C-alpha cells in the first residue's frame, strides 16, 4: 500500500468518526551504509523506515497516534487511538491545524532523488580508506571508514486540503584514524557531507581525520585557570546544537528558557548575529515548510546582540500574539509538534582564523567538546565539558592540549563574544535542524586541568 492509499483510508476513518480537523504526517527514510576495514567492504546495511503520525483536534485538544503498519485495520486503529489521546489531554493551550492564512508553501524534491549505484558507493568507501592511510605513515589503521547515503521524504496532508511534500538526500563520508605515537594511542574522526557522491570530498575527509588525530601528538593538560577561548566552528556548532532550545518560544513559555521576557533586549555581545535560514543556499537541507505546513522564511534571531524574536509554531505564536515564524518541528515522525530552528548559524565576521589568533595573542583554541548530552544543562545554560584543542601562543596556533574541562554558561558566553571569524561551516544535516558557525572568540572561560595553576602562582613558585 502506498502513502496516498493509506492516507485515503485514514481520512475516511476520520470522517467516519465524525472528525473535522485532522492531519497526517508521513516520513520515509532510507539509508545505505558501506563500511570498509582493511581493504574490504566489511559491512553493508540498508534500511528503510516508513512511519505515519495522525493528529486530530477534538474539543480544542490535540490527539496523536503513529504507526509503521499500513493496513485498513491500522488506519482505523490510528484514528481511534488519536481520538482516545485527544480525550485524555487536559492542557488548556490553544491547538491549531494550519489554515493557510500565512500563505501556501511550495513542495520541494531533492536534487537527484535517487541513490548512487552500489558499485560507485563501494569504490568510494574503499578509496576513502586508501586515502586515509596514505595521509601519514604514523596512521596504523583506519578504525572506521564509511560512505553512507541517506534520503528522506516528508509528506503532509490535512482536512483543509493541504498537500505538501519535501525531500532531501545527503552523502556522508566518515573516517576514524588510529595511530600510536610514543606508546600513546591516538584516534580521531572526520566527517564530510555533500548532496551527491561526486561532490563528496574524500581527500579532504582523509586529510581532516589525519589532522584531528596527529595534531594531538604530545598533547598535554594545562594548569587550571581562566583563559581567553576561541571555539572552532565544530566546537561552536556543538554548543549551538545543544543550546538552540533557549530560543524556542515553547521552552520560554514553559519556563524552560531564560529568554521569555527578553525579546527586544540585548542578550549578547554586539559582535553576535544568529540567523535561522530554512532555504540557505549553503545547506543541503532546504525546508520550505515546517512541521505544521507553515511556509518558512529567513530571520535574524539575534541581531547585533539584540534578541529580535523567539522561534514559534502556531501554538506558541498564538499564546504570544505574534505570527508563527515557521519553526514548528518534529523530532522524528512520532514526536509531538515542538519548536526548533532550521538552518541556524552564527553570521560570519571579517577576520580570518589567523587574524583572530593574532588578535587573541595568548589563549586557547577549543576544537572539540565532548559529553554534551550530560555535561550541558539546556535549562540553566551551564556547561562543564571535556574538551581538547590547542594553545594560542604569540598570536598563533600552538601546542596541542587535551584532558581538560571547560566550564561556562551559554547565556554568559553570548555576552562574552569578542569577535567572530569569516570561516562559516555547517555540521551534518538532519531531517530538521542544521547548525553552522565560524570560529568564535570569547573573552574568558574556566578551564580545569591537571596542575592547579592558581595555587602554584599564589605560592610564588
Amino acid at each position, binding site marked *: 500500500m502506498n502513502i496516498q492509499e493509506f492516507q485515503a483510508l485514514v481520512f475516511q476513518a476520520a470522517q467516519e468518526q465524525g472528525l473535522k480537523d485532522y492531519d497526517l504526517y508521513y516520513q520515509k527514510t532510507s539509508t545505505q551504509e558501506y563500511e570498509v576495514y582493511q581493504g574490504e567492504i*566489511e559491512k553493508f546495511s540498508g534500511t528503510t523506515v516508513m512511519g505515519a503520525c495522525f493528529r486530530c483536534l477534538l474539543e480544542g485538544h490535540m490527539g496523536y497516534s503513529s*504507526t509503521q503498519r499500513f493496513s485498513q485495520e491500522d488506519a482505523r486503529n490510528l484514528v481511534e*487511538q488519536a481520538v482516545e489521546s485527544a480525550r485524555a489531554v487536559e492542557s488548556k493551550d490553544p491547538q491549531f491545524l494550519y489554515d493557510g492564512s500565512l500563505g501556501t508553501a511550495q513542495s520541494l524534491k531533492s536534487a537527484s532523488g535517487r541513490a548512487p549505484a552500489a558499485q560507485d558507493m563501494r569504490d568510494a568507501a574503499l578509496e576513502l580508506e586508501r586515502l586515509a592511510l596514505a595521509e601519514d605513515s604514523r596512521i596504523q589503521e583506519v578504525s572506521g571508514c564509511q560512505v553512507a547515503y541517506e534520503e528522506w521524504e516528508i509528506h503532509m496532508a490535512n482536512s483543509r486540503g493541504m498537500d505538501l511534500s519535501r525531500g532531501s538526500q545527503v552523502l556522508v563520508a566518515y573516517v576514524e584514524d588510529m595511530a600510536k605515537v610514543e606508546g600513546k*594511542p591516538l584516534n580521531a574522526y572526520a566527517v564530510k557531507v555533500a548532496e551527491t557522491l561526486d561532490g563528496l570530498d574524500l581527500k579532504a575527509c582523509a586529510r581532516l581525520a589525519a589532522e584531528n588525530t596527529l595534531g594531538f601528538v604530545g598533547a598535554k593538560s594545562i594548569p587550571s585557570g581562566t583563559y581567553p577561548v576561541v571555539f572552532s566552528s565544530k566546537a561552536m556548532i556543538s554548543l549551538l546544537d545543544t543550546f538552540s532550545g533557549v530560543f524556542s518560544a515553547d521552552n520560554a513559555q514553559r*519556563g*524552560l528558557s531564560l529568554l521569555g521576557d527578553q525579546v527586544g533586549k540585548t542578550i549578547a555581545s554586539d559582535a553576535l548575529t544568529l540567523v535561522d535560514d530554512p532555504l540557505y543556499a549553503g545547506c543541503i537541507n532546504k525546508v520550505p515548510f515546517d512541521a505544521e505546513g507553515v511556509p518558512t522564511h529567513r530571520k535574524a534571531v539575534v541581531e547585533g546582540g539584540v534578541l529580535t524574536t523567539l522561534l514559534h509554531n502556531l501554538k506558541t505564536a498564538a499564546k504570544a500574539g505574534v505570527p508563527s515564524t515557521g519553526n514548528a518541528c518534529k523530532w522524528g515522525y512520532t514526536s509531538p509538534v515542538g519548536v526548533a530552528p532550521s538552518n541556524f548559524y552564527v553570521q560570519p565576521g571579517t577576520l580570518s582564523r589567523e587574524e583572530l589568533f593574532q588578535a587573541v595573542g595568548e589563549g586557547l583554541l577549543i576544537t572539540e567538546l565532548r559529553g554534551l548530552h550530560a555535561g550541558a544543562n539546556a535549562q*540553566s545554560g551551564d556547561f562543564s565539558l*571535556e574538551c581538547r584543542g590547542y594553545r594560542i601562543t604569540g598570536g598563533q596556533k600552538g601546542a596541542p592540549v587535551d584532558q581538560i574541562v571547560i566550564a561556562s554558561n551559554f547565556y554568559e558566553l553570548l555576552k562574552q563574544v569578542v569577535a567572530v571569524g569569516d570561516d562559516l561551516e555547517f555540521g551534518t544535516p538532519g531531517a530538521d535542524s542544521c547548525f553552522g558557525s565560524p570560529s568564535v572568540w570569547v573573552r574568558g572561560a574556566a578551564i580545569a586541568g591537571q596542575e592547579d595553576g592558581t595555587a602554584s602562582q599564589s605560592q610564588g613558585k
Partner: protein
Amino acid sequence: MLSEHIIQQVLERAVSTGGDFAELFVEDTLSNGVSMIDGAVEAVNTARIYGAGIRVLKGVKSVYASTSDVTLQGLLAAAESAAAAIAVSDAWQGSITLTPKAAPDRHPVVEYPGQVPVRRKVELIRAAYDSMKSYSPEIVQAVASLSDKDQQVLIANTEGLLTRDRRVRTRLAAQAIASDGKENQVGFEGPGRLAGYEIFEREIDPAAYGRTAAKQAVTMLHADYCPAGQMMVAIENGFGGVLFHEACGHSLEAEAVAKGHSEFAGKLGQQVASTKVTAIDDGTPANLWGSINIDDEGTPGQKNVLIENGILTGYLVDRLNGRRMGLPSTGSARRESYLYAPTSRMTNTYIANGEDDNEEIIRSMERGLYAKKMGGGQVNPATGEFNFAVAEGYLVENGVITRPVRGAMLIGTGSQVLLDIDRVGKNLDFGQGMCGASSGSVPTNVGQPLIRIKQLTVGGR
C-alpha cells in the same frame, strides 16, 4: 507473527549467494507516552513499530537489510538485497531445520501497559508532578511523564533457531526546574523496570521520586560552582555506576575489543583494576531495567563476571565480533529495533559490594568531592578517555560533607580510574539509563555501592 514456512524461505533466500549464516529479526512494538506539564496532561502518544531485519554473515563480513514491509514479498526482497550485497560466488550448501525454542521467562509481568487505562497513568504522573510542585515555591516548573513499551520479537537463524520473546518496560520520568528568576537548575529522576504497571504498587512511589528530583533542583540552585582541579572523589551508589559503565564497560564490549580498538584488548588475566573491584554484567535478575530473557540474537541472557578482584576475566561478546575473537556469545547482543544490526552491549552492569564502611569512606577524606548523583557520560574506548557529569555534588572538608556544588565534570582514563579506586562500600544499588551506541539506544542499568577514587580531574570554575 510469521509461519515457519515463510521464515525458512526468507532465510534460504538470504544465504543464496554464499553467506554462511543468516538471521531474521521481526518486531512488533507498541509504545505509549503520557506527559504532564503545568498540572495538565500535555500529550498522550501511541506508536506502533513494526518491521524486520535480515542479517547475513560470511566470515567476519556482514550485511544488514531492514524493511517495514513484513509480508513474504517484502521479506524476500530484503533477503535478496542482503544476499546481493554479500555476493560471494559459491552458493550455500546447508539445510535449515527450524526448531522452535521457548525463551526463558525470568521477568514476569502482571499489568501489561495495554491493559492500563490512561486515567491511571495520569494519576501516577500527577502524583509525581504534585510532589515536585509542592516541594518548594522555588520549583517553577515540573514535567512528569510515563513511557511504556511492549516489544514482541521473533528471532530465527540458519542454525535452526526459532524463538520469540516479549519485553515489557515501564518508566517514570520526573524533571523539576528550580529558579530564582535569574537562573534555572534541574533535578531529574527516572526509575524504570523490565515489568508492567505493577511496579508502582510494589517499589516505585512516584511522589517520592518527584520529591527527590525537586530537592536536587533546589539544592543545586543554592550551590556554588564546583572548584576546578584534581581531587579525591567519592561517588554514591545507584546512578554513580555510570562511572564503570563509561570508563570501562564500553571498552569491554567486543565491538571495541575485537579489532584491538580498546585499551583493555589483550588484557584477559591481567590486573586492570584495584583489587577491591569486582565488576559484573548480569542480564538475568528478575525485572531489572537492563535485564533480558534472550538477547537480540536469541541467546539467553547470562551473568558475566568482567573483573574479579581487579583481574580482567571477560568481555561482552556478540556473534559477529565473537567470530573475530574466537569467543562464544555471552548473551550480550542488543539493538534498539529492527532498524539496527545487533552488537555487543551492556545489560545491568555494576561494581559488586566491597568491604569498606560507607561512613568511614567519607570520614577519611581530607578534601574532595562527594558525587551524590551522577549525570551521564561518554568514553572513547580506544584511548579510555571518559567524561561524566555530576548532577548533585557536595564538597567534603575534613571528613564532613559541607556544601553543595554545581557544574562538576569528572574526566580521566578508564584504565587509570579503575586502579585508583581505593574504597568500595556496601550499599549496591542501580540507576536506570538509556545507552546509545552503534546499535541504537538500549535500556541499561548501572550500579555500584559508594566508591572512592584517589584522584580525578574535576572540571568546574
